[in-house]
């Protein structure tokens, strides 16, 4: 499965990263606590979250994540978008809840790192 497939499953709006949709996706991490992401997420995971500030983008950049998916129908402001662009991290927004996003991706075969 690649980022483009994930976007299609979640009916996501791709705000940044349309040129990186071919990238393979193996694992998903869902969290609102950024310290948890820093501790446990690994390179190339995709992050599902309800948060939408600069710090989500910074955290994803610091952990080399493959993409950020903001759930629950929220639009980032121009500052967050500018940072996303600068750090070049794919950013999707989805109108579904975090719970439903996780459910759909689980159903499609994606798992958390280290889990079957």
């Amino acid at each position, binding site marked *: 499965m690649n980022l483009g497939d994930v976007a299609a499953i979640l009916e996501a709006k791709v705000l940044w990263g349309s040129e990186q949709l071919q990238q393979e996706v193996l694992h998903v991490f869902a969290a609102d606590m950024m310290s948890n992401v820093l501790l446990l997420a690994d390179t190339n995971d995709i992050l599902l979250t309800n948060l939408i500030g600069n710090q989500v983008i910074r955290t994803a950049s610091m*952990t080399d994540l493959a993409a950020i998916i903001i759930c629950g129908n929220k639009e980032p402001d121009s500052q967050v978008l500018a940072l996303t662009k600068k750090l070049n991290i794919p950013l999707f927004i989805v109108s579904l809840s975090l719970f439903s996003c996780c459910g759909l991706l689980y159903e499609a075969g994606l798992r958390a790192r280290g889990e079957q």
Partner: protein
Amino acid sequence: MDFKAKLLALTAKDVMSTNLKTLHFSQKTNRAKEIMRLQKIGGLVVMDDNNQVVGIITMENLMIALEKKMMDQPVEKIMKRQVITVSCTDCLKKILHLIQKHNFRRLPVIDKAGKPVGIITSSKIIDIFTNLLEEENDAHDIKKDGEAFVVAFEVESGDFQKLGEASTGVKNVLKDMGGFPASLIRRVGVVAYEGETNIVIHSLGGKLEAKISPTQINLIFSDIGPGIADIKKACQPGFSTASEQVKEMGFGAGMGLYNMEKFADNIAIKSKLGTATIINAEFKVNK
């Protein structure tokens, strides 16, 4: 790499957009207009039966077609036939020369088989220059201290907009220096970010210094502020004194020092209550 060297190292592959739309020369001009409108792009590459570039359609061609009522004609009737293509490995200097000499604003980039893989547009080149200039602004002085290079970043108290700039800076310096494994750079980045966050949240201001040698990297976080009352307690996962505002941003869950200890090879914390805190995080390079 300095700014000039970065520019000279760029090739067509680095500056092209891969959002390339093509169509066959027999397709109708109306179709070209629709693609350009829906994709919000200003040009299309026209192909023949052998997947080779034979022309280009721009807004100008479309305007002429509209004027001459040729919108239902195949695009080969209205396309521009003089197309300059470049290969993926052509350097930026050559590309800029071509753009200037021929006054073409779109150059398709082709692979060895002549198949287009991207397009260079003037707006994309402006984007690349803007990004490079921004990177240049983020660059910091690097001083030499014996074997080690030292780079320092100021961290302001309470400035959540800038939070992350210092640690991104450290990460970029390590990447630019080359030779450090990606997993190490990532660990250093995470520790830098947690430490920077602590300074922004808890202190009255401070700095992050990275000492980089071929065998060891040290991150030194120093701040003036309240200090840490009970260092052992502060390192326990879940212990936090952060405000609600900080928690809403996804921090302040009491994982900061714990994460730093976990990702660094060694951590030394010195703190004087009501005065200052210094944290030295050490990473071995050959591990």
